[in-house]
């Protein structure tokens, strides 16, 4: 697509500079995109594995929990779980992967050494195993949400970068090249016109 510009030398210099910048930007963005995709693929593979693992373990935890519920009266069960043995809290910091800000989640729970919040007298063994599995899977779940979030954010960034790369490659750079060509031709044409005019005038002066 041709830009609407005046075919002047000044404009030509300006466009040429712009073309150099656009090409460099394109190269940089392309490199960024490649690297992002490389990192993303590593990350998303981990994400998939972890997701499957967490799904599986949670399922078995819930199975035990359902068993426990069927063996114990509802009130006793709720009473047993009423007061948590530990308080899980997390600290979040930012990590930077190729200029994408991703959260980094760390658990900072106050360990009490005992994950069971109840005495064992009135509860069933199934409940113990359910709680045991859950306590083990929680760090994995947090790691999963960290990775999953990072993947989502990176996917978004990759999409944005790709759009920019394509805009430069297929719109900006071709249109700059075309416009530069147009101005060069126009200037050459003017030059030729000028020469012919000069020759004509010279002829008239000689003959006159």
């Amino acid at each position, binding site marked *: 697509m041709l830009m609407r510009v005046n075919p002047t030398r000044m404009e030509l210099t300006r466009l040429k500079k712009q073309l150099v910048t656009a090409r460099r930007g394109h190269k940089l963005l392309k490199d960024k995109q490649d690297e992002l995709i490389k990192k993303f693929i590593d990350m*998303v593979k981990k994400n998939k594995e972890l997701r499957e693992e967490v799904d599986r373990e949670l399922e078995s935890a819930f199975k035990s929990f359902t068993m426990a519920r069927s063996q114990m009266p509802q009130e006793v069960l709720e009473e047993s779980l009423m007061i948590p043995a530990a308080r899980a809290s*997390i600290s*979040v910091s930012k990590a930077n992967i190729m200029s994408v800000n991703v959260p980094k989640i760390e658990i900072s729970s106050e360990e009490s050494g005992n994950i069971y919040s109840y005495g064992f007298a009135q509860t069933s063994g199934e409940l113990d195993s359910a709680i045991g599995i859950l306590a083990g899977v929680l760090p994995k*779940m947090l790691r999963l949400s960290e990775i999953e*979030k990072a*993947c989502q954010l990176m996917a978004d960034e990759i999409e944005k970068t790709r759009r920019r790369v394509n805009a430069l490659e297929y719109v900006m750079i071709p249109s700059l090249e075309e416009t530069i060509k147009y101005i060069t031709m126009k200037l050459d044409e003017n030059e030729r016109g000028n020469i012919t005019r000069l020759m004509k005038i010279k002829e008239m002066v000689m003959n006159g």
Partner: protein
Amino acid sequence: MSTYKIGVVGDRDTVLAFKSLGVDIFPAMDAKEAGQIVARLAKQNYAVIFLTEQLAKDMKERLDYYRNSMLPAITLIPSNKGSLGIGIQEVKKSVEKAIGVDILFEREGEE
């Protein structure tokens, strides 16, 4: 670096199991209620929200809204009725968005 909390949103039976781990649980009956809870938690100090797939399947819009912000990270978990496969579907969606084709899962389909 600051301290955040963890929230679990889901049906009553599912979230009850998490209670003893010291995370905050929020029972929700349906997707509408869960949506309100998630919106409230997002404004508060919750960095990670676990949401059951059963509820998540009817609140895609709200989840997409949080998808591209750094916090909170909303992670789907299966409920006690089993996994619906939405969690893994979301991973797939990210791959397709980033690369255009699904490179992680196609191999399994061929086999």
